[in-house]
Each structure stands twice: as structure tokens, then as C-alpha cells.
């Protein structure tokens, strides 16, 4: 039997794509090497950040143009998140009460006003607040905070339950989801793709018209085994969480000049991150081990918490109860890579970006590009075709 669509990976992207495809009657089959949500989708910060990210504003960075493209996508993502609980018919701890990107000094403030002007031009309704106005919203902000960019629709959601909700909905619509099922090999046979799969020690094969590599930071390596170059690079990150405290912060906090994301969960814990690196474990040949959890880098933990307590001094009275690490990937131009790979018709990828914030939207777009046999205009910019030149000299095994 030939599947219409085979999805590799049961993270947020894979599960959401499975749901959209199943609803369209395509009865996709999803295989996941470990358990649903066991990868980055269950380990991330859960931030819904729609302002232009700090990384696109880094001085001397090349991210300026990309920042604009991302804003267009973020506006769509806001709508996507706002409708998600209704669509999936269950609570998902989605909080879109607003987000503040903080400035601590004049240089920060200058960057922030440029950013707000640009966002407003692009139709994103960010507002520049004074330090006092920011403290009206969050009285515990440090007194030296001199300004903030406010976006009313930012917030956070619970990454521990979202992929499950998509997986359950996908199953209910007819998708097959198999865990402990690892893709070992994928090759072209005639018009179809033939997959070799290991399921609890058994090797099976399956063929499919369309294959989606929704395999997170494994995507580039799987593609490489197929002789395809997808420019995705490892981003090993770390997160921290403190003990609980009474609710005081309904907003997402970011920083325009430093790496920081911070929020308070429904349970009262403070979750702190912002893109600080962890150190991947290495295999004997020195390559990063994609399956092993990266090591915490203590200096980065200290730096991250220093930034956090710098803007929110009350954190000093909290205790760190856990830190964790996880891996994701970024693309060569920092924008997500979504859609069919030109050198491999029928093979689709979706990776390389803030795929929690953008995941639900991009999964829907990806499903549409299979259902409609055409890339939706909204995501044309993110098409894998922009890297087609990298596959000009390769021969697929």
C-alpha cells in the first residue's frame, strides 16, 4: 500500500501537519522515533513572540530584511494562535495578554524606537512605552528600565501539552500515529518514496507519495543521508525554572539588547531563557550527538539569570529548581525553510526558526501546499527553493 503522506517526526510541526492533512481526508501516517513531543517541541520556552526578535536586530547583523519578512508571518501567526483553543476544542494554556521588550539604557531605547517604527510600517501595532508606563504594567520591573515596546497579542503557551492536542485531533480525523518508530532510510523508487522504518526492533518498509521531514534538528542529517543539502544548523539551548510564586506577571518579557525571555506559568513558576547556548555532547568523531541532551554551560546559566534579575530584581528571592537543555536548528538566513525540496519532488521540510511561535501556522501552510499541490503565497518567501543552488551538484543515492 502507498501512503498519500508519510510524516517523519512527532513534534509540534509533524502532529499539526498530520491534523490538517487528516482533516482534508488524506489519512497521513506519522512515525516518531521516540514519543510524541519528546523533542524541542516539549522543551522550549513556550514564548509567543511576535515583535521582531533581538537576533534580527543585532548590530552589524544581516537580519534586517529578514526581520521585515518575519513580521508578515507573525501577523498571521497571531491569528492562528488566537483561534487554536477553539479549533482543537480544549484548553491549551494559551495566554495572549501582551508582551514587553525592555530597554535598559539609551542605546537600547534607540534600537527599540527604530524597531517600533519599522513594525508599525509593516502593520504590527507595537507601542513604545516609557519606563514608568512599563512599570505601571509590571510594578516589579527594575527602576532603571527606561522604556519598552508593548505588543498586546504576545504571550505564552504550554509546550508540554500542545503537540498532544494536535496528535489527538489528528488521530480523531483518521491519521495513523506510531511512536517508537524510527526512519532509517528514505529513497526514491519510481514516483514514490520508500521508507525503511524500525519499530520496536522490527524493520519494515512503507511507500508514500509525499514525505514530510518534520524532524526538527535531525532534519538536515536525514536529508544529508539522502544526498540533499538543507542549510540548517544546530542551536543547542538552555532554560531555567524557579520555584512558584504568587501570580504577578501575566506578560511575556523580552529584552531588546540582551538575550532574555521570561514568563510566569499558570502554576506560578518563572520560566527563564532567551537563546543562551548549551554544549552538545560529542560523538567519537567530534560531531555533535543529536540524540543526547546537551550539557549545561554554567557561565551561560549565570549570565541568563543575571540578565533576568537585572530587569526583575524580585527574582533574587526565588530559587532555581531545574535547568534543562534542548536542541533546535536555525537556517542559513535565519528564516524558516518550509515546503517542497526542488531537487526531491514529493519531499517536504519544515524547520529552522522559532517553530513554536510559528509552528501551528507553518504546519497548516505546509499541509495546504500538499493538499493544493502549490505553495501558498503567504509562505513563498520561506520556500526551500531559495536554497536550490546547494543541491546543484549532488547525486541522490
Amino acid at each position: 500500500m502507498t501512503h498519500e503522506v508519510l510524516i517523519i517526526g512527532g513534534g509540534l510541526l509533524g502532529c499539526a501537519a498530520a491534523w490538517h492533512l487528516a482533516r482534508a481526508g488524506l489519512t497521513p501516517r506519522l512515525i516518531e522515533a521516540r514519543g510524541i513531543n519528546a523533542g524541542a517541541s516539549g522543551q522550549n520556552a513556550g514564548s509567543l513572540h511576535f515583535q521582531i526578535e533581538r537576533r534580527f536586530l543585532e548590530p552589524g547583523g544581516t537580519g534586517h530584511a529578514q526581520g521585515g519578512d518575519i513580521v508578515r508571518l507573525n501577523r498571521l501567526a497571531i491569528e492562528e494562535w488566537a483561534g487554536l483553543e477553539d479549533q482543537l476544542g480544549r484548553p491549551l494554556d494559551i495566554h495572549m495578554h501582551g508582551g514587553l521588550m525592555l530597554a535598559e539604557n539609551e542605546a537600547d531605547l534607540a534600537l527599540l524606537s527604530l524597531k517600533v517604527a519599522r513594525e508599525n510600517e509593516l502593520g504590527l501595532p507595537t507601542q513604545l512605552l516609557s519606563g514608568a508606563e512599563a512599570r505601571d504594567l509590571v510594578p516589579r520591573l527594575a527602576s532603571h528600565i527606561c522604556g519598552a515596546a508593548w505588543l498586546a497579542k504576545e504571550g505564552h503557551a504550554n509546550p508540554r501539552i500542545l503537540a498532544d492536542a494536535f496528535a489527538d485531533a489528528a488521530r480523531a480525523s483518521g491519521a495513523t500515529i506510531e511512536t517508537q518508530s524510527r526512519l532509517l532510510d528514505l529513497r526514491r523508487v519510481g514516483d514514490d518514496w520508500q521508507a525503511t522504518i524500525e519499530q520496536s526492533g522490527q524493520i519494515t518498509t512503507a511507500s508514500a507519495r509525499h514525505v514530510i521531514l518534520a524532524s526538527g534538528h535531525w532534519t538536515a542529517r536525514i536529508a544529508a543521508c539522502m544526498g540533499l543539502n538543507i542549510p540548517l544548523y544546530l542551536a543547542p539551548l538552555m532554560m531555567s525554572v524557579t520555584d512558584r510564586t504568587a501570580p504577578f506577571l501575566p506578560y511575556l518579557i523580552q529584552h531588546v539588547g540582551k538575550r532574555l525571555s521570561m514568563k510566569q506559568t499558570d502554576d506560578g513558576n518563572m520560566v527563564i531563557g532567551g537563546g543562551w547556548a548549551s554544549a552538545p555532547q560529542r560523538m567519537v568523531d567530534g560531531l555533535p550527538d543529536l540524540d543526547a541532551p546537551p550539557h549545561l554551560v554554567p557561565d551561560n546559566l549565570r549570565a541568563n539569570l543575571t540578565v533576568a534579575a537585572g530587569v526583575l530584581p524580585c527574582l533574587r528571592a526565588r530559587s532555581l529548581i531545574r535547568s534543562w537543555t534542548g536542541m533546535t536548528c536555525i537556517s542559513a538566513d535565519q528564516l524558516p525553510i518550509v515546503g517542497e525540496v526542488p531537487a526531491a519532488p514529493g519531499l517536504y521540510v519544515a524547520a529552522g526558526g522559532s517553530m513554536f511561535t510559528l509552528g501551528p501556522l507553518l504546519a497548516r501552510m505546509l499541509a495546504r501546499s500538499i493538499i493544493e499541490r502549490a505553495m501558498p503565497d503567504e509562505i513563498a518567501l520561506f520556500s526551500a527553493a531559495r536554497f536550490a543552488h546547494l543541491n546543484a551538484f549532488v547525486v541522490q543515492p
Partner: protein
Amino acid sequence: MIDIAIIGGGPAGQAAAQQTLAAGLSTTMIDEQARPGGQILRQPPATFAVKGWMNGRLYRPLRRLLAQTEADTRLDWRGETSVAGIERIDTHFRLTLSGAHGGTLLARRVLIAAGCYDMPVAMPGWPLPGVMSAGAVQTLLKSQQVVAGQPIVLLGSHPLLLVLATQLLDAGADIAAVLMPQTYGQIARAALPYLAGAIFSPGPLIAAGAAMARLRRAGVPMMMGARPLGFTGDGRLEAVDYTWRGQTHRIAAQAAAVSYGFLPQSDLPRQIGAAVRWARPAGGWETVCDGAMRSSIPGLYVAGETTGVAGADAAMAEGEIAGITMARDAGAAAGSGIARAQARRARMQPFIDLLRAVADPGDVWPQATPETLLCRCEDISVAQVEATMARLSPMADASAVKHRCRIGMGLCQGRSCEHALVRRIAAARGCDPDAVAPFRVRFPARPLPVDEIID
């Protein structure tokens, strides 16, 4: 950088320190307690004068070792300090410390001799104030000279309860009952295969017999084969319910001491990735080591209960072996007693096996109800955990369950509930607990004030 860091000032850590100090190696000992001694000799504060403290014959070698440790000026003792993190950097280790001597410590070799802790057992009413682990009751008694509450009921499958009962009698406490779920017959059958070997360790056996006789003389009601049903009370413990000889009983109590066994401290070995295995029979994770106490990580050694719960004498012997091995591996003038210590440790094994067999909670676990909390930090009930497990594939590991219902996400990070969750997953899958991937242990091993990290 120091030569040797020893985590834990119990018998194992102290015995190791004697060896490394004698070999001329710079040695730092870190312990959360103010004074060395570990669990078995939990000392009163230095300002207390306690007459006849821990005077029993079996404690004498331990007290001798303790006196030597405290008098040894070469030892860098850092009390009231927790080790929150351990990492390997190139060929040495970095410890993150919290408390009185907070900061980081670099060491060429590390011994984890962190002991064990009372296994928390979920049963109806167990979070009520007044319900305590036997260890907590004993610690209050040993170090603070305080009886936790009276009348007190002692219950569980572990013979430590007998020792605790005599210590409580010495303190003049009113013991309402000792409830043990095994019958004498079951105990005898469990012990039989090990008795012949155990005569090499007559001390503890004689002590146990003497304790029984003493309790009987004192008129303490000993109910063998009694199954605890749970604890009741309005805001605090008022009574213990149990069945005995086919009937349900209720006995009034202000305090209860529970003991079904002990779990090795495993957070630091697991944080650094040392090989561990499911400890039998009580559960938890013991760190794997070779006969010379080397863990699977070069430069990292383990001794005492961290390697499996085996009692204070075994901890002392293992500490000595570890100390000599560390000195040898460091190329220092090591002591020559390693073979003797290993033989001494080997002779104890039959008694250890006997004690484990007798204490085995395997067939006599108290029953939790669906409302019973399994995770006390996050208030997660048995029913919530079971519903979560039912939604997942049977192959889902402990972390998958945790992510979905928050079991183990609180202050203790699973120290209290992880063993019970893994047991449930194994039972549902019909596999050995060793086959279930437990939680991933992360930094820090203890809640760490943000203030301490960033300064």
C-alpha cells in the same frame, strides 16, 4: 584545585578521608549537616551536651571514626553546604556548592558518599502533619533530643522500626503500636536462605533480637501481619487505620513513623551521567561501581549507600576501599589494606541480603486510593497519573508522564515520587523497573537561590 572532594560526611566519606589524608592528598569534605557523622551518627548541635549519646556497642567503631575525623586538622571540612552540581571538565571536576561555603570547587577526584534517604510511600492521608518517615523521627531524636509526637505509631516493613522503637523508649516516648505487615512466618521464610552466611555478622542479629525482647518487656503492642490502611485527622494526624487478623482497627496517634526501606541518593551521579541501576528490593537507583569503588566515569568514585543500601559497617568498609583506590589512582602512597577491607565487606553481604529480604516491601505495599497524592510538591494524585498513563503508549517513559501531568516537577524534582511512578509504569508494561527510563536528572540537585548563582 584540590586532590580529593568527598561529598558526604557519613561513615563512607569519613573512612575514605582517612585514607586520602594519610596519603598526603588535599581533601575537602562537603556535607549539608553542620557536623560530620552522616545519617547514623546525626550529631546534636555543638552547643548541646547529651549524656550517653548513641552509646550502643554497635555504634562504637563509628564513633571512633567520627572522633578521628573531627580531630583531623588536615581535613578541609565544609558543613552546612550542599553540592548542587557536578560536572566533568577535561580531566577534573567542578562542583557547584550552595549554603555556608557556596561557590565552586575544582577537584581532581570526587567521591560521592551521599548516603540514602527514607523511601516516601504514598498511602491515604500521608501528607497530614504528624506523618513522618522513620528517619525524620530518628533525626529529631538523635540530633535534637525531641520526640516527634505522642502517642506515636511505628509502621512499615523495615526492621529499622525496631531500632527506632528502642530509641524512643529510651527517650521515654509513649509508643502506641508497632505495625509490621509481615508475619513472623514470612520473616523467617525470607531470612532462611541467608541465615548461614549471616552468622558472620552476629552483632546486628543479636541487636534485633534484643530489641524485640525489650519492646515486649516494655509492653509495646507489636502487631505482625498488620496492614496499614491510612492516616486520618482534621488538619493533622489523629489516628492510624489498619487491618489485623481480618479486622479493621483505628488507633489514636499524634505522630506516625513510616519505614518501608531506603532509596540511595542518586541525583549527583545521575546528573553527571554515571551508570546507575534499579536498587533491589526497595527501589531507587544505585550507582554502579567496580570492586575498587570506581564509578563508570573516570575520576569519580562512590561508596556507602550511594552504591546500594547496606548499612553503616558496609559504608565504612567501602569508604576505606574508595579512599585507598583514590590514593592509588592519584599515584600517592596508598594504604595497603584494600584486600582486607574488601574481604570484610564481602563477609557482610549475607547479612545485607538477609536484611533486604526481610525488609522487602514487595508483597506488602500499602494500597493507595485514586485520591492519594503521589506527588506532594505539585499535588498530583494517583488517579491523575493513571489517567495520563492511559492516554500514552505503554512504552512512554517517566519523563513523558511527568511532562503531561507535572508529577515530579516541583521542589523535590521527583526525589519523592519518581520511584513510585517508575514502579507503576513497569507494572503496566509488565517489565522490570530497570527497563523504564526514569526522569532526566538536571542541575541543580537542590533548589538553589538565584542570588547565590548570580553573585
